């Protein structure tokens, strides 16, 4: 009796959702972040619903199974724009973004009230290595460091420390592709000594990211600069949203998101910029990750300009020149410089959009376009996640993740982003973006 009362009560809370991102799934994140009934969590242990958003490529199915099995009972799954695995019981596929929050709430409620059974484990119930009853004491190990006690070998020293000459143990593990602080789809093999990154090998590149249609159009024909610049600013704001969540600034990250959703030529960035610098975002948070000139050129775009390269295809466009465009730059090239650069560029984009809208200016150069991710003339900006392999070793964990968040490395997809889901604008709930 008391138990059912407890379950009824549990059904009324916010729905803790662990999102697993497939291709083009990150839009869901931005939609759900503003939904009051949904709580996006960073660890599957803290969730009752596993949301698979977007199509998960075959090489990431095994990790998905692993994550699926890591949710504690009772839990259920929901598949968004992705075909559920046939052997799962009672799973629902949702395709309309507007239905998603409601479906998540329903799933959680049914689960809590016992109307829906919990999902089951997919992987066999076996330790990573057989150990029981083996070894000197039945713990699976041998001697002091050998064997596989409780199923895994012990951490051992593989390489010298890179900082202070105390060579202690290092830990090697693979992180991702469903680690929230990484670009969607990225996975890396990392060796840590203490909390310092010793080596970093990017194993799976992030999914190619779809860009707004207007950038594709701009390569074919002149398009209104106002539209291009608003799309650019929106792209940057989305990146900032993820980074601010990582830095623990939940409310500013949501403010950024609202600004992005309601972005128009009358939006301003002043409030956001002020909030960030007042709260010490540039002084107190993790930083590091200085790009050298070669690396900066390789990645291109705002990251390169933050490192002092003033390459920008917009400077070669007569339409932009008429608006008085010249590239803005930073010199330091580190994480904080990239954020300053991004804010400056968003500001500049909004300014250009305002001027362009007033004077109805269009782009004039076709065939090449400066995307938010970098210059796209002959080739699309390609994936640059291999850059992390040389950039991150030597950084401590927080700095490494902040650096990852500050770099937009994913290559561009060959398709523009699908029809913009109508839900995104509705979720804003009265936020025009002006009042931030």
């Amino acid at each position, binding site marked *: 009796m008391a138990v059912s009362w407890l379950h009824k009560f549990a059904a009324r809370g916010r729905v803790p959702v662990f999102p697993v991102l497939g291709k083009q799934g990150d839009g869901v994140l931005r939609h759900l972040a503003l939904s009051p009934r949904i709580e996006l969590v960073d660890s599957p242990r803290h969730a009752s619903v596993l949301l698979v958003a977007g199509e998960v490529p075959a090489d990431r199915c095994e990790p998905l199974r692993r994550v699926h099995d890591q949710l504690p009972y009772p839990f259920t799954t929901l598949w968004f724009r992705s075909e559920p695995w046939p052997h799962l019981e009672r799973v629902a596929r949702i395709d309309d973004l507007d239905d998603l929050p409601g479906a998540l709430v329903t799933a959680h409620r049914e689960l809590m009230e016992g109307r829906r059974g919990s999902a089951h484990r997919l992987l066999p119930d076996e330790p990573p290595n057989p150990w029981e009853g083996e070894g000197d004491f039945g713990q699976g190990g041998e001697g*002091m*460091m050998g064997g596989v006690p409780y199923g895994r070998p*012990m951490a051992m020293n593989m390489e010298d420390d890179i900082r202070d000459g105390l*060579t202690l143990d290092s830990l090697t593990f693979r992180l991702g592709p469903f680690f929230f602080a990484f670009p969607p789809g990225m996975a890396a093999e990392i060796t840590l000594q203490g909390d310092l990154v010793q080596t970093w090998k990017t194993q799976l590149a992030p999914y190619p990211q779809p860009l707004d249609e207007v950038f594709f159009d701009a390569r074919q024909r002149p398009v209104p600069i106002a539209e291009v610049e608003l799309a650019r600013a929106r792209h940057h704001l989305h990146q900032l949203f993820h980074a601010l969540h990582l830095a623990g600034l939940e409310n500013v990250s949501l403010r950024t998101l609202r600004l992005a959703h309601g972005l128009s030529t009358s939006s301003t960035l002043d409030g956001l910029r002020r909030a960030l610098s007042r709260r010490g975002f540039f002084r107190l948070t993790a930083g590091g990750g200085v790009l050298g000139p070669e690396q900066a050129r390789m990645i291109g775009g705002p990251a390169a300009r933050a490192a002092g390269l003033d390459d920008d295809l917009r400077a070669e466009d007569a339409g932009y020149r008429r608006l008085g465009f010249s590239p803005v730059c930073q010199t330091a090239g580190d994480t904080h410089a990239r954020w300053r650069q991004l804010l400056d560029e968003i500001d500049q984009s909004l300014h250009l959009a305002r001027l362009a809208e007033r004077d109805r200016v269009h782009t004039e150069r076709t065939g090449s376009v400066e995307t938010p991710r970098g210059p796209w003339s002959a080739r699309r900006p390609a994936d640059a996640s291999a850059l992390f392999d040389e950039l991150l070793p030597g950084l401590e964990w927080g700095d490494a993740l902040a650096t990852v968040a500050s770099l937009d490395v994913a290559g561009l997809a060959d398709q523009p982003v699908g029809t913009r889901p109508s839900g995104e604008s509705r979720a804003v709930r009265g936020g025009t973006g002006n009042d931030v």
Partner: protein
Amino acid sequence: MESMNHGLGVDIAFLLLATLAVVTGWRVFRTDSMVRASFFLLVSFIAVGVIMILLAAEYLGVAMFFMMAVEMTVMALFMVMFMMNPAGLNPMNMVHQERIAIGAGVAGFLILGAMALLATFPDQPVPAGLEPVRSLGNEMLGESMLIFESAGLVLLTTMIGVVVLSSHRGRYGAAAEGSMPPGLEPGGDPAGKPEEDEAGEGGHHHHHHHH
């Protein structure tokens, strides 16, 4: 009546705390996990600290808590840093000359215990009105500033000493100097470690000499 009750309660508490202190003190050397060992020692210290409070040494007892909490945290950090198999995933027994050690331990206990039982000490309990903390403070700030000054200087020396010894920017040169390659093979003993005789009798020996 009230005071007798109180006395009995204190006796029971003392008995429990004494058992706790001894058992956890013993467990320090009987557990495989270095973290557990450090925190067992911490519990032993805390038990002794509570006994001190029961003895009206309120400052010393409570100070024991915070001093030892910090020291044992640091102890745990260093134990984990420098001991192979710090969590004791493989049970191990890293002892040498165990029989001698047991003998010495028991002998120490017997001698000291006999002294405690046989010797007579003056019976001069703490006077009723004494404020232990105040008297301690007065003693420290006594006629001269000797205690404070010497303590300050000794501790400053310690600070400088630990910085010099432990910081890799210290006078012992940069990090790379003097550091040796890691073990010849994974899990083996560090290269350059001197051979030792296998005199230890303490059961399972942890060294595996690979040749």
